[in-house]
């Protein structure tokens, strides 16, 4: 069964790869996310508009209206209500999807906590933008500031990756009962068209079974109270169990990605190492679309490598250490931050230091780049490389300092 439906990469020398049971389409990142939700047969979509996410929920509305998707779609009154409704429907046993961005995610913060503490599976797309003063452009401060809410976080480099990650995320979320946030970059991804391979419904159905009812499920035959006051003698048990399951995420994510590759023909890993070996002197650490720019630049620098973080929460410590195994101890890491969280160091460097502490003593340089949507062209990446090699400073702002 598995062999029959598996897709095979038919990549030629100068051809795009082709995948069996897929349709080749040109889609913006937001529409790719909507396609993924449709293919995962989501049943409940609470919606509220916010730039640059809006076209996701617009497209889903269209799909529900024209019968492409059998889901209950409700226009809510705020993102707080969107997530509160998502929580209710997930407790009711539905597969839930929604999308938000920036202020919307900040507004929903309280409910993000409740959803993960309730151990409810769902997948939500966040199209990253920073906080007020108003800015709608690409920035990961919103989702990275929610990294401690107990949600799993993936950051997609391409629209294809977002589509594929959402499909994998439902499997991961429903196996562990931990919600997943799939993050896109504003405009560079959300509103940029790419060639996308959209898998067939048959293929996705074979990969992703319908959601099964878990313990946190409203059962009319066996009524219970969900989320009442939990005294100290019990509360820690919930946290303990969540902690145990959070520790399974990295390995399970890898396992699901491998299974995904067998069905769909596309390979993903929690972290990706590019040109990291004994000869490497400098490694750029990136997430999302900056990775693509950096990929192009490092081709011209034989001694510069790239470490892409796809899974960010829980932080893939094992994967990072493995990816850096061949890197000499005197090499340098340059963390590229499209976020500002109020501390000296950005989120990526904070996480990298925690991951490497006690295992590797590599020098780390932190580069703020692209905050508030500021473009990060190849020249900026080259400046980062130049500065890291010739004038290494602990923390600096690319194109500013």
């Amino acid at each position, binding site marked *: 069964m598995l062999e029959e439906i598996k897709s095979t990469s038919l990549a030629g020398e100068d051809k795009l790869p082709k995948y069996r049971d897929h349709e080749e389409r040109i889609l913006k990142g937001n529409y790719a996310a909507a396609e993924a939700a449709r293919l995962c047969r989501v049943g409940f979509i609470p919606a509220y508009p916010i730039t640059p996410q809006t076209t996701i929920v617009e497209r889903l509305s269209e799909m529900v209206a024209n019968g492409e998707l059998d889901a209950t779609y409700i226009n809510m009154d705020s993102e707080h209500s969107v997530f509160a409704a998502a929580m209710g429907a997930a407790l009711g046993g539905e597969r839930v999807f929604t999308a938000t961005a920036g202020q919307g995610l900040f507004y929903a913060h309280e409910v993000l906590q409740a959803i993960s503490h309730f151990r409810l599976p769902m997948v939500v797309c966040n199209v990253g933008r920073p906080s007020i003063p108003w800015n709608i452009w690409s920035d990961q401060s919103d989702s990275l500031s929610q990294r401690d809410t107990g949600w799993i976080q993936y950051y997609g480099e391409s629209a294809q990756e977002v589509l594929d990650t959402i499909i994998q995320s439902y499997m991961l979320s429903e196996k562990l009962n931990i919600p997943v946030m799939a993050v896109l970059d504003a405009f560079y991804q959300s509103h940029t068209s790419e060639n996308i391979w959209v898998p067939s419904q048959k293929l996705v159905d074979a990969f992703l079974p319908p959601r099964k009812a878990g313990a946190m499920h409203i059962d009319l035959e066996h009524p219970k109270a969900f989320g009442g006051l*939990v005294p100290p003698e019990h509360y820690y048990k919930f946290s303990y169990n969540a902690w145990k399951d959070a520790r399974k995420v990295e390995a399970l994510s890898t396992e699901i990605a491998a299974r995904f590759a067998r069905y769909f023909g596309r390979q993903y890993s929690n972290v990706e190492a590019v040109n990291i070996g004994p000869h490497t002197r400098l490694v750029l650490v990136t997430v999302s679309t900056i990775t693509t720019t950096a990929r192009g630049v490092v081709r011209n620098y034989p001694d510069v490598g790239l470490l892409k973080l796809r899974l960010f929460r829980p932080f893939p410590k094992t994967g990072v250490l493995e990816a850096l195994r061949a890197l000499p101890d005197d090499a340098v890491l340059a963390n590229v931050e499209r976020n500002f969280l109020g501390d000296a160091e950005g989120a990526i460097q904070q996480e990298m230091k925690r991951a490497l502490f006690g295992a590797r003593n590599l020098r780390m340089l932190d580069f703020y780049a692209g905050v508030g949507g500021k473009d990060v062209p190849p020249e900026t990446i080259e400046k980062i490389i130049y500065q890291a090699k010739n004038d290494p400073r602990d923390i600096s702002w690319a194109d500013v300092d």
Partner: protein
Amino acid sequence: MSPTQEFLIKDEKVYSGALSCRGCAWSLLARHLSSILGDNTVYVVPACCFSIISGPYPLNGLKGNIVHTVFAGASATATGVRAALDRQGKADTTVVVLAGDGGTFDIGLQALSGAAARGENILYVVNNNGAYMNTGIQTSTATPYGAVTTTNPGGGYKRTWPKDLMGIIAAHNLPYAATCSLAYLDDLRRKVRKAADTRGFRLLMVDGPCPPGHKTDPALSISIARLAVETKLFPLFEIERQRYTLNYIPDKEVPVTECLKYQGRFKHLFNEENGYILEEIQEHADHYWRQLQTKAELSWNGKEKEKT
């Protein structure tokens, strides 16, 4: 069956041992509600006294599912629960929000308005005890003019009028909304039944006695609730698609002071220098009543409303 027997609870849907204070509205209200709504009911409860009264983990005071949810999001969570049940062919399951006045008039108003405007098939029950009682008697926008709470800097009592929630709710053109009192159980039970039998968003506002918050004798909870209706401080009425019906017209004029005098939170109003506040409250109650009368007259084009 005689009316005196109609409010007896025959099929108890609440376990014993509720954690409410003596003379609290919540326990009696929950017993009557659940006995009418039956087993096929899911309750959604934001932060409020009932979150505690219904029992800490792993207890459940009701013989039905209770979803405890975030303070501002009860109506939204209920929307999600409703959607899930409907998708699973359980449209006959009643989804009920049990909230306090803080979770309704204040922090939950936006979600409430959203769900009401969407016409979600939800029954919303607000136990209005006129302050944040669960956290220790802080002012809400339901707190009556002149009442003492623990958060009234300045004069020590509230100097603004409470929100007219029923007016706000009426403006949403709901199929059914009503005020209820635990002192008029036959009326309350009829309204719960009517609300249960109506589809769409329905709201019941119950006058909630709260001895610690109102500084009253627990034994007088029901008597004071009755006086609130008799004095027209808490009129009993129904609203169907903006059409009003007065359900109880007191036989004689009883001044508001007859109800206020039993409540320690209004004690200072009986000092001579505060007499004008009592007059303002009386005038406000009289005016609200006249408004209701006028709305009721206009509502049915002079025709008597069909008996329910």
